[in-house]
């Protein structure tokens, strides 16, 4: 089966829009289900965690630089660095580590 990139993009766009637009246009009351609220509350943390590790180890040229970038990102975010600073810290660590690594 062949796949068309534009169909992929269209599916992504429609689903993404539906997820966001339906609650704000249809739901005018607070969600009552405690389970559903809790589930929706935990989803972002779980999805982002699962997508970050171990994928970050394979994103760089060496797993060591990926691991150190993860550590740097966690530390920077823990101490309240902005989104931009956290992202740049991770990049800087990879750049430095991969520059030094061949000499070790």
């Amino acid at each position, binding site marked *: 089966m062949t*796949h068309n*990139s534009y169909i*992929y*993009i269209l*599916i*992504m*766009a429609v689903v*993404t829009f539906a*997820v*966001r*637009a*339906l*609650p*704000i*246009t249809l739901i005018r009351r*607070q*969600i009552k289900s*405690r*389970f559903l*609220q*809790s*589930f*929706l*509350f*935990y*989803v*972002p*943390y*779980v*999805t*982002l*965690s*699962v*997508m*970050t*590790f171990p994928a*970050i180890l394979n*994103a*760089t040229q060496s797993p060591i630089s*990926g691991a150190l*970038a*993860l550590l740097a*990102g*966690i530390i920077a*975010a*823990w101490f*309240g660095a*902005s*989104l*931009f600073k*956290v*992202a740049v*810290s*991770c*990049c*800087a660590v*990879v*750049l430095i580590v*991969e*520059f030094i690594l061949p000499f070790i």
Partner: protein
Amino acid sequence: MQSTKEKNSTAFRDGIRDGIPIALGYLAVSFSLGIAAKNAGLSVFQSFIVSALCNASAGEYAGITLIAAKAAYIEIAIMTFIANARYMLMTCALSQRISPDTSLIHRMIMGFYTTDELFAISISRPGYANPFYMYGAVAVAAPGWAFGTALGAIAGSILPLRLVSALSVALYGMFLAVIIPPARKNKIIAGIIIFCFAASYAAASLPIFSGISEGTKTIILTVVISTAAAVLFPRNIEEV
């Protein structure tokens, strides 16, 4: 007493001001998304429209990894839904914070641009959230996101490998910037993140899971762990 029109134009200008740091962050992060899109076989134009139409870091990234894997259409639809499920919670919250007489078109545009950061600044202001404040921020942040992605797709193949390798972790940095600060305040979230790392590592390395695609693994792990967390650690409604 300001007229509504004056109020809206003030809100729009405030939005532009508050949107500038977000735009800078988006530019760096979407750049790495563009590199991923290019690696998945998307053209520069396709990378641009993905970001212009979706405005979702994790959702787009999940979709792009599935495009790279030539996944089934249904798989990409489910994954996009799961990766963006948190926006349902945000637009639910936003629906409680906008004036009840906000028109359908304003609701739809606000929904379209509900990202983690734009949502955060929109509800941080006292009183009803003014759509024009959000539009001001969107006016600078959304182009930063879309053009950043296109630049990543262009430059990803020109830049030296070492630099691409460094920039490709920016996206993970953004994920960490979203999940880590709440983990510092909430031990349950911290525990869940550690558990997720371990479970995800196990799913990636154990041979019994090797037949399952990357995206399906993320869907299964997300649904199973979030359900377990909701059952074991239900939230008080007021906490959200």
